[in-house]
């Protein structure tokens, strides 16, 4: 083990230390990387780690004989999210590139005995390329399309390093960008490089980062605040969380480079309150960097001063909006302001403020260390680089993926995500969060970049991609978003506060089969006013989930209003449940039914009493044989076979 200096006073001292650590680690033969992302932890990853440690201890003599000493040549560590959450808990063994899925504590023994001692993979844990149990297995993770088709920049360290280990970060080119900026570039050159890279903000609107930074430089200033937006309010998006959880140093390095470019001396990272691990790891990283002289006064002897604090949100989606976020940082109610004066002039505490998203900052170190040209060589004409998407919903391989801009929706959903669960028909993909929209099947071949999505009435947003199959009701989806926004509206301005309430009431009655002639037009009129006359972007963007579903799925609204028909089988008042002949009489649904609506005996077909049934859907959820159908207007809308497209 080599000793870490107390503090780094020059760039060289940092580089020298990194070199020493590298040499020391050359003795590492094998690394076991346990994914400790939220989904894998929920699946028992930490219990597996405990078991593995026991097994490693128990097998220490044999391992030693095989040349593996735990702690030096054999390292076992917890990393951030590996991305393929659906198949978790995940374990990766390097350098063999072995990728294990669905790992349980009981597998610890066979992993030690078979893989570590004999060098053979544990077959049952390997990834199945066709998602079936007996299917062909992937020997290496690079054989898996989910990984092979990705290009990781913002996620470069995510899943490979232990986020709490400074040396791990350093070894993966940590602070290379910062050192390059401080030693070889002027602040103006840093801002120019970010501008030339074509990087656009990853937090939602896609505003060119370089342009924002340049306009900040033009403002006469005594002090500039630098803020990192880690509020990530988009439900269904979790990339910022994973970056903060799994690679906190990269985010801070990005901020330091920005601070150098912009002459900012003070900054905040604003983290959403539901992300305790991000808070923990970022706090740890900040404290560590302060102690090492990488935050504070005269960083690496360069004259750069930057103080960074962390602040937690209080649970309000609107606080992801920049002006509301700044009010929240001030300890106030998060009400947005009209943006007639830009925050680069008057932001936090009415002082000049530059605010960027987590993923935006996470791209900056690589842009500086590898060059603007390298970054802008990826992507499309106006959307450069890569983007992280959270692929969730009714898709087989849910998780976090990073691909160059311009990949089509089909490539992301089908090639990377493996298609729709149970190979059901695709109905829509929702992008852009609550201000985004739903795109239908005939848009699957669109290249995904900022401008294309916006043109189609959807939005890039923060990169959430929620895939929906035929058993989704688009009116219900619109109602869901409007309810979400109405709960999250700050309540200040009339079109947003009252408009959302009224749109919700109209959608609610439509989904209950009480829709009226003229309701669609009423919604459209209201949406128009919300869009043009709301005070902030929450209200202005709120109509899009409704307008996009009206544009692409208008017939579903009409069916609800005129025929009282819900083709997705979702709207409770318009559906009934029915048990089909495939029922084996296992009594499970009967036991779970909260209203005793199901009667039947063991091994005999069960029957649902419509009068007692409250359409809660539990019977269908617990049935292992797909024996419960959903019926609307006499038609089976959700049954065993994929329903009508």
């Amino acid at each position, binding site marked *: 083990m080599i000793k870490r200096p107390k503090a780094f006073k020059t760039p060289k001292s940092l580089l020298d230390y990194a070199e020493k650590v590298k040499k020391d680690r050359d003795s590492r033969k094998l690394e076991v990387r346990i994914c400790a992302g939220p989904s894998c932890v929920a699946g028992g990853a930490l219990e597996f780690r405990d078991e593995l440690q026991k097994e490693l201890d128990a097998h220490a003599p044999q391992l030693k004989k095989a040349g593996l000493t735990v702690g030096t040549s054999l390292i076992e560590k917890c990393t951030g999210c590996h991305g393929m959450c659906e198949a978790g808990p995940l374990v990766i063994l390097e350098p063999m590139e072995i990728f294990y899925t669905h790992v349980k504590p009981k597998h610890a023994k066979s992993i030690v005995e078979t893989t570590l001692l004999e060098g053979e993979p544990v077959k049952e844990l390997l990834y199945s390329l066709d998602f079936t149990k007996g299917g062909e297995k992937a020997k290496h993770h690079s054989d898996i399309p989910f990984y092979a088709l990705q290009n990781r920049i913002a996620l470069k360290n995510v899943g490979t390093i232990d986020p709490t280990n400074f040396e791990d970060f350093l070894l993966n080119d940590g602070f290379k960008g910062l050192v390059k900026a401080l030693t070889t570039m002027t602040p103006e050159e840093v801002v120019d490089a970010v501008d030339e890279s074509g990087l656009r903000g990853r937090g939602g609107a896609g505003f060119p980062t370089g342009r924002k930074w340049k306009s900040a430089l033009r403002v006469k200033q005594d002090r500039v605040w630098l803020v990192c937006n880690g509020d990530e309010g988009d439900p269904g998006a979790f990339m910022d969380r994973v970056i903060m959880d799994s690679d906190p140093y990269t985010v801070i390095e990005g901020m330091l480079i920005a601070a150098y470019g912009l002459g900012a001396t003070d900054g905040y990272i604003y983290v959403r309150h539901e992300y305790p691990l991000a808070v923990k790891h970022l706090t740890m990283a900040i404290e560590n960097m302060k102690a090492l002289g990488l935050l504070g006064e005269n960083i690496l002897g360069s004259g750069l001063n930057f103080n960074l604090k962390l602040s937690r949100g209080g649970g309000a989606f609107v606080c992801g909006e920049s002006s509301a976020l700044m009010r929240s940082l001030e300890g106030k109610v998060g009400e947005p302001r009209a943006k*007639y004066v830009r925050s680069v002039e008057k932001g936090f505490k009415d002082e000049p403020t530059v605010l960027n998203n987590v993923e935006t900052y996470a791209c900056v170190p690589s842009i500086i260390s590898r060059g603007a040209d390298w970054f802008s060589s990826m992507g499309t004409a106006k959307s450069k680089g890569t983007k992280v998407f959270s692929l969730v919903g009714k898709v087989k391989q849910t998780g976090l993926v990073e691909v160059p801009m311009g990949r089509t929706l089909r490539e992301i959903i089908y090639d990377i995500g493996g298609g729709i669960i149970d190979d059901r028909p695709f109905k829509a993909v929702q992008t852009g969060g609550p201000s985004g929209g739903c795109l239908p099947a005939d848009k699957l071949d669109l290249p995904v970049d900022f401008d294309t999505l916006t043109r189609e009435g959807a939005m890039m947003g923060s990169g959430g991609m929620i895939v929906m199959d035929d058993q989704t009701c688009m009116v219900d989806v619109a109602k869901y978003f409007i309810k979400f926004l109405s709960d999250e*509206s700050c309540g200040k301005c009339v079109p947003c506060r009252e408009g959302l309430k009224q749109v919700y*009431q109209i959608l609610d009655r439509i989904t209950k089969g009480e829709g009226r002639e003229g309701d669609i037009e009423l919604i459209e009129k209201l949406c128009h*006013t919300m869009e043009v006359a709301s*005070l902030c972007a929450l209200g202005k963007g709120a109509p899009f989930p409704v307008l996009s579903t009206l544009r692409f799925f208008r017939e579903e609204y009409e069916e609800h209003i005129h025929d009282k028909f819900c083709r997705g089988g979702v709207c409770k008042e318009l559906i009934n449940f029915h048990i089909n002949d495939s029922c084996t009489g296992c009594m499970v649904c009967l036991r779970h039914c909260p209203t005793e609506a199901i009667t039947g005996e063991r091994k005999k077909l069960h029957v649902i009493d419509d009068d007692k049934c409250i359409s809660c859907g539990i019977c269908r959820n617990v049935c292992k044989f797909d024996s419960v159908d959903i019926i609307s207007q006499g038609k089976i809308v959700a049954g065993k076979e994929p329903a009508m497209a």
Partner: protein
Amino acid sequence: MSETKTVRITIDGRSIDAPVGQTVLEAARQHNIDIPSLCYHPGVEAFGACRLCVVEIRKHNWTPDWKQLVTSCLFPVEEGLIVETRSPEVMENRKVVLDLQLARVPNSDVIRQLAAEYGIHDTSYEKREDADDCIMCGLCVRVCDAIGAHAISTLSRGPEKYVDVPNKDACIGCLACALTCPTNAIEYIEEGNMRTIWDKTFEVVLDPVNKKPIATPEQIAHFSKQSGLPEDYFTKSDATRKKETAASFARVMFD
């Protein structure tokens, strides 16, 4: 002192010189051009909540069909700005906004009358149940804060947001909130020398001459503390105060 800089703007075809720093609404009002508003008050910071004051702007160097709706109570004047206060788009949105307000406060005479001026006699939307007359313009809270009492505030958020008095102890019974409320939604009772507001009853000091209420003792103590004037300055009858002020002016003049 240097002269205030002005810019030239056009509102509804009229050319106007407005001082830099003024908002479009202020400039319009100064020149007697009517822009409706509910949440604006010259005494407190503009808020931009009621959206009635929204107007359409163009700029002389923009392409001719480029226009935008902006909040006139917040939008600062700038050279060459062209403002339409009653364009079809503006009127359309004003109507929807009033329609929404009418659903919120169906019993408010003020809103009913205003909506009627725009041809809306009944709301297109579902009326709020058990509706009071509050339109959530936030004026009462801003006024209470400006006075320095900080007794009332908005609570909760979204459609559920409401105004209440979480700091009742701090209420000085000054009535500023009730008197600035555009829809008279804040109730108070004044009988003899008793005044009740926000469920809190105050004894009122009466004008020694005409027996009209002047202020509550709490209010007097508060203003006296804030202004540095003695408490009895606030309790004198109007006539006495005027006389004394004139006398002090006279003293200053002769010195």
